[in-house]
């Protein structure tokens, strides 16, 4: 759902996944669990959908938002000092308030930037594949990911008030 941002499309993709699994059931060797096999098919279907929707969009620049706004953000961001987050990354990652704040901050990212970030960080897809999916160069993708991380960190610094640690 988070990748496709549309419940109807997400449901269509789930249905396509089940149908594909049904047609390919003879090829399921049992080398992994059924769940892992289905999730693998689902991921491919999601990537196909994203690729198609990106193809239908007008050609993007570095990001699908105003470059001047991005430049202002970059300047301000570079002047700011990050807050100290607790050292235990696992604990922070499990913190319910942190996760809620992160989900809100993710929603604020421009579409293409948020998608690039989710594909890279949540799905662990390699950068060359993301370049193919989104139709951007490696340099553009590096900029998109850098800006996504910068915006998320700044957004979390402003909106997440949970715990503070000591300087690393």
């Amino acid at each position, binding site marked *: 759902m988070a990748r496709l941002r549309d419940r109807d499309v997400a449901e269509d993709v789930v249905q396509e996944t089940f149908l594909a699994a049904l047609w390919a059931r003879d090829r399921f060797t049992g080398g992994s669990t059924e769940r892992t096999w289905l999730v693998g098919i689902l991921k491919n279907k999601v990537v196909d959908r994203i690729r198609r929707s990106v193809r239908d969009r007008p050609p993007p620049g570095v990001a699908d938002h105003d470059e001047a706004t991005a430049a202002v953000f970059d300047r301000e961001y570079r002047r700011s000092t990050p807050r100290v987050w607790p050292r235990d990354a696992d604990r922070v*990652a499990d913190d319910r308030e942190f996760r809620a704040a992160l989900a809100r901050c993710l929603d604020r990212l421009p579409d293409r930037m948020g998608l690039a970030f989710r594909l890279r960080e*949540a799905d662990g897809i390699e950068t060359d594949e993301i370049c193919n999916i989104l139709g951007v160069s490696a340099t553009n993708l590096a900029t998109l990911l850098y800006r996504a991380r910068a915006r998320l960190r700044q957004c979390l610094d402003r909106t997440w008030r949970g715990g503070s640690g000591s300087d690393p």
Partner: protein
Amino acid sequence: MSKGFRAIIRILSLRCGEADQLMSDSLDRRLSWSERTALAGHVFACRSCRRARQQLQTLRQAMRHSLDGVETLSTEARDRMRAALKKSC
């Protein structure tokens, strides 16, 4: 100019903005020797960039857990899928 000397120049001239970009890049590709050395030197000396690096690590950790929660299918979608699967059996 020797490799070591170039690295020292790079460390001394690296600004926080560039260090920040390199920290992000390091999550996606292997940095070159001079980039790694310059970044390590800069981060060692810069408190702000040490904080930024920790934030990046936490962010990655959090994203590797699923953030999306469990979405469930609506009853209509379930029925539709069941019918489609039956039809293709």
